């Protein structure tokens, strides 16, 4: 059994998404409550600067028009500092906020069941919240090396009663 055994389940459908306020870039914070009112995609990921040139966050970045077409906005969360996030976001040309779950480390991740204390970083976990901030779908990748795509997110958004816009 790998050391990275998943011991705590992530939050699931029907549970209210824990509210949080996290710094995004130097001088700015993002409050989840300001995003409630439209569907929200929450992406918990282990760390900035993944060695792959184009992976999970780059795919989501590419799909922002499709997500917007379904009324949704995306927030990504890791334990990295705002300085790392700023540099990473600029390097990859991201058009969504990277939030810094840094102080105290992993506090928000723990509330969602996504943070692994032993490793000191998040698992790869996805959540789709409806426009009232209730989790309607979540997914935990069985291992950090297994990178989830966006198919589950799109299907979950399309299943929301309030979803509008074209089916991609």
């Amino acid at each position: 059994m790998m050391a990275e055994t998943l011991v705590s389940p992530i939050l699931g459908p029907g549970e209210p998404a824990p509210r949080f306020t996290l710094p995004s870039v130097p001088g700015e914070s993002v409050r989840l409550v300001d995003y409630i009112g439209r569907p929200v995609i929450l992406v918990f990921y282990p760390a900035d600067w993944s060695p792959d040139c184009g992976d999970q966050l780059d795919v989501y970045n590419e799909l922002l028009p499709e997500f917007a077409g379904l009324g949704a906005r995306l927030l990504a969360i890791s334990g990295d500092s705002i300085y790392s996030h700023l540099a990473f976001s600029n390097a990859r040309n991201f058009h969504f906020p990277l939030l810094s779950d840094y102080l105290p480390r992993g506090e928000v991740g723990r509330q969602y069941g996504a943070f692994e204390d032993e490793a000191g970083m998040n698992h790869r976990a996805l959540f789709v919240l409806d426009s009232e901030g209730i989790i309607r779908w979540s997914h935990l990748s069985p291992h950090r090396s297994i990178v989830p795509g966006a198919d589950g997110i799109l299907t979950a958004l399309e299943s929301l009663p309030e979803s509008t816009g074209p089916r991609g």
Partner: protein
Amino acid sequence: MANLLIPVSPRDHARGPADAILTLVEYGDMQCPHCALVHPIIAEIAGELKDSLRVVFRHFPLAQLHPHAQLAAEALEAAGCQGRFWEMLDLLYQDNAKLDKDSLLRSAKKARVDMKQFTRELDGQVYKDRVRADFLSGVRSGVSGTPAFFINGEKYNGAYEFDALVAALLKASRRT
């Protein structure tokens, strides 16, 4: 296990027999260095497995990350429309640091396409939707980065190396 949602069809760019026991679908981004590195490996594997293998290429440009990837993908389609898809793919991956428009035109010339038609179609963004459709088909199949491979419709999660890919292909062939 993620599966290929849109099966291979005559609309795809395929190399190898349609009834080959193995089909390898690649979703690639023309500006991605990993894709460029794995390209000759796929060619080597195709050389080894010969008629047992059909190779299919679909576009997965991450345009926000790779500013030339979208146009390069459309250029491939334009070349493909004239039957020069694989020649163009080989040329572009040979030096995928150079994918600006002038480089694409030079490669198209080397691939011996009709330049007037090629340029007209590229400028007219004739293949923009086709490329996006490929990309979305990859998204729906669970592609989370490039390159992404599907062997007989099942996502391959191993290394982008000759031995690992061949092993996975041989394993799949024993299941057919």
